[in-house]
């Protein structure tokens, strides 16, 4: 591996899914080899979530009626009588891992997920494929949410874009229900955690490459464990307890 200077900027870009192929591959390797590097990357993921939560809490709630009215009047003045263009016309811009998705998953997923590539089987092509609307982009799809609401752990659910299996279910101290799950297609897999208050929201995800159709656990499992520990995931809910927790959450 050529020397890669592990600056904060590089680690952060990796955590944000912004690195291009060769650099991402080198970073993934560095991360797999050195837990300290992995820790720094995870910290950048955390800081993204922290910042996002802090911003969400502040000023998104209500646009003052006078502002809304003023803007509506402007729109009427400029576009009065014209049919508004359907929102579906708004397409995402070219570059940017997060940017690509954000048009159809506005605000919801992107910040909370940063793909962390682990292990040596992870190549540039796969990074790009994952970024370009692969499994990572599906984690917040309604079908995934639906499966998370219904399936017991260990049960496979076939979705058009892959197979979903919930691995484990937890309650956090604040009462949220969280589920660790795996979404797997023929050549890629994503392991993620989604938590639910009002709706499911992915809070963590790790992208993986699948070799020859076999799912191969890798160093990413440590990351997942670290993550679950960091959010204070309690005891795994099984059987009845899991079913009850799901029923409550769906109420």
């Amino acid at each position, binding site marked *: 591996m050529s020397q890669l200077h592990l600056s904060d900027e590089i680690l952060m870009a990796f955590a944000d899914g912004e690195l291009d192929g060769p650099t991402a591959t080198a970073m993934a390797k560095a991360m797999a080899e050195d837990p300290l590097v992995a820790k720094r990357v995870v910290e*950048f993921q955390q800081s993204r979530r922290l910042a996002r939560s802090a911003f969400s809490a502040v000023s998104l709630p209500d646009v003052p009626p006078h502002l809304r009215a003023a803007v509506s009047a402007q729109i009427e003045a400029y576009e009065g009588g014209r049919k508004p263009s359907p929102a579906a016309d708004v397409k995402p811009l070219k570059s940017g891992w997060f940017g690509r998705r954000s048009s159809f998953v506005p605000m919801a997923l992107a910040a909370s997920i940063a793909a962390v590539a682990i292990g040596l089987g992870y190549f540039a092509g796969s990074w790009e494929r994952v970024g370009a609307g692969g499994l990572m982009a599906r984690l917040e799809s309604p079908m995934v949410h639906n499966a998370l609401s219904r399936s017991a752990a260990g049960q496979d659910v076939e979705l058009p874009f892959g197979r979903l299996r919930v691995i484990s279910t937890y309650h956090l101290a604040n009462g949220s229900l969280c589920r660790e799950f795996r979404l797997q297609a023929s050549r890629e897999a994503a392991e993620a955690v989604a938590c639910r208050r009002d*709706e499911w929201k992915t809070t963590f995800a790790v992208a993986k490459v699948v070799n020859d159709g076999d799912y191969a656990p890798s160093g990413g499992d440590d990351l997942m464990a670290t993550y679950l520990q960091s959010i204070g995931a309690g005891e795994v809910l099984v059987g009845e307890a899991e079913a009850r927790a799901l029923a409550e959450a769906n109420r």
Partner: protein
Amino acid sequence: MPAAIGQELVALLPRLRRFALVLCRSQPLADDLVQGACERALANADSWSPGTKFDAWMFRILRNYWIDHLRRMRTEGMAEDLSQQTQLVGDPGEGPILSRLVLSEVQRAIDHLPQEQREVLLLVCAEDLSYRETAEILGVPIGTVMSRLARARKRLMELTAAA
């Protein structure tokens, strides 16, 4: 005939207003900024190409409008009625990760960041824009976006680790 952007504009209002608050830190001023930027966008709707990102286009307009405003006002006596905007409601979706306490620590930390770091933090971490899109909105090189963003996030982690 330019594309009708009214519908997108209305949908974007809360996020425009949040960006405006990050820029100017005053609610009345933020509302004025948003209104002025919307007017400017509507008047120049033909410069937006359907198929490109509407939010990035709009953020750029808003920020340029703010810069123009600063030039006019020479920034004197900028009010900081932060107290009004920090009434926390919490983000239920992210609740699992953050206690209320940590959240308010983070908000305080963000408030104390230099404005140039606050705006990249918002655009990348909350608006999910790519580094490149952010660089285009701010009119700075991508490396500048990265160094500001890394510094801001390191700072957040330091402050919250100490909390």
